[in-house]
């Protein structure tokens, strides 16, 4: 199973690196946020309701998580293209493990996402973000777990829905509230009580909080552990759903 995962991973990576421009484009939007939105937060930093830390320390973790969400949620479209070309069916008639077919793809997505996040962090560092090596590791680890979860779920959704239109509708419907209710752009500590309550029902908000905690803006160990736990849980749920969908006959 591992060697099959490696085969799929290598093939996916080779195909992706043939058109690296898409990964650069994926970085442009977060960079624009970093340059044009982050300065707005500077006067707010240290003010009432704002978590401790510099504006960048509060904003950049959210931005990295956002890139992780949007970069991986849409990988299902690539799978859909492969389904149309008959590639998926061709792989499914081989004795290769169904989990390997999924893991190879997810592995590539997570690797590319981690590289993008590291690049984004480097730019933020150049702009004045101060982050310890441990913060880097924790943040990249959280984003990678999130990537595992969302890429798997996106593939599962693509296999189930079998239609680009339906997938686009579903992802937009899910991703916008998930993003707004996770305090990615502005911390939820600024929100009124009812909105904070809603955010608590959103698993992604714990991951964002943990990412901020890792950056040192909220030095609360329990927030960090809770977020890591939630991210791990999301990854397991995503993989489980993805594996099940890949194994089901109609997929």
């Amino acid at each position: 199973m591992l060697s099959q995962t490696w085969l799929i991973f290598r093939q996916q990576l080779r195909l992706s690196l043939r058109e690296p421009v898409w990964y650069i484009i994926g970085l442009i939007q977060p960079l624009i946020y970093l340059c044009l939105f982050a300065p707005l937060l500077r006067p707010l930093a240290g003010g009432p309701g704002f978590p401790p830390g510099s504006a960048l320390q509060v904003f950049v973790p959210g931005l990295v998580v956002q890139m992780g969400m949007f970069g991986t949620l849409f990988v299902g479209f690539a799978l859909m293209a492969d389904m149309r070309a008959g590639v998926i069916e061709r792989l499914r008639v081989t004795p290769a493990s169904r989990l390997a077919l999924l893991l190879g793809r997810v592995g590539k997505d997570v690797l590319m996402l981690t590289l993008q996040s590291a690049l984004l962090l480097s730019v933020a560092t150049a702009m004045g973000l101060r982050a310890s090596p441990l913060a880097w590791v924790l943040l990249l680890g959280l984003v990678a777990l999130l990537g595992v979860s969302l890429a798997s779920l996106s593939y599962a959704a693509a296999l189930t829905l079998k239609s680009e239109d339906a997938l686009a509708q579903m992802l937009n419907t899910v991703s916008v509230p998930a993003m707004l209710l996770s305090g990615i752009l502005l911390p939820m500590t600024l929100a009124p009580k009812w909105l904070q309550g809603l955010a608590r029902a959103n698993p992604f908000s714990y991951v964002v909080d943990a990412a901020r905690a890792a950056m040192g803006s909220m030095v609360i160990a329990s927030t960090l552990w809770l977020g890591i736990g939630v991210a791990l849980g999301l990854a397991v749920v995503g993989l489980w759903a993805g594996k099940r969908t890949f194994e089901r006959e109609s997929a």
Partner: protein
Amino acid sequence: MNLIECRDLKRTYRKGKRIVEAVKGVTFSVKAGEIVGFLGPNGAGKTTTQRMLVTLLEPTGGEAEVAGHDLRREPQEVRRRIGYVAQRGSANPKATVLEDLVLQGRLYGMGPADAAARALDLCQRLDLKGLGERHTETLSGGQRRRLDIAMGLIHSPKLVFLDEPSTGLDPQSRANLWTHIRDLRQREGATLFLTTHYLDEADALCDRILILDAGRIVAEGSPAELKARIAGDLVTLQLGGAEEAGRAADRLRGLEGVRDASVFESQARITVDRGDQRVLPLMKALGEAGMDVQSVQVSRPSLDDVFLTLTGRTLRDAQEAA
């Protein structure tokens, strides 16, 4: 030895509130070394049956043994032993021919050197030589089809399934593809099971044909046997209208040497033992009855006639209705 043995294989699915029986129970077997084809219009259940046999769809009833292993209990063992060439193609557009072939071989458990050697060998044999580094999206339709076949053969399976192998190809590429398919049995010793809605394809390739209509096998035999079913020759008489054709058929039924008379649109279709000898008496009989025949055609029966005799529809009509 039988490489395919299926008993009462069924597949139903739900479409809204309706239950659709795509395959209503098919029973047949395929011996090692045979080329067997499913012939029938779109929607007859050919592809659905084949997808069940290659483990892509789970049967909703019946059982099957493929390449010596039970389809339901040991799908993994079945997968190892069969090759499948799907109708819609299978190549990754952005990958190169060799990348795709080698990946496929390695997923079947071949070592890197073996897979590469086999990929080159197949390219050579299937007229893909020199195209190994090309991205598959730049190949012609015929080349891509042959790559699909190479992909299905990479692990040297004993049993190969081909779904509508020549659909969408120009006549020259079709003839070329048929040569390659016949070659598979000779050089690879492979047993082939294919689906087609082309009569000429079934006639050109198959030792044995199973005619499928509306989810059931309606006839089975070699192309020659099936043609012999509607024994004798066919005399097609073109008359002024359906009513007149009906009267002509009634008039001729019972004449010496006439085995059957049927009506299709404004034609009377008369099956006779010897077409060359019976045409004149038929014409004479109609002339005496004062009926005007616009044209006469004498033909050896084709598989299309077989399909018409068995189902009351021409294959083309069935195709359009589907």
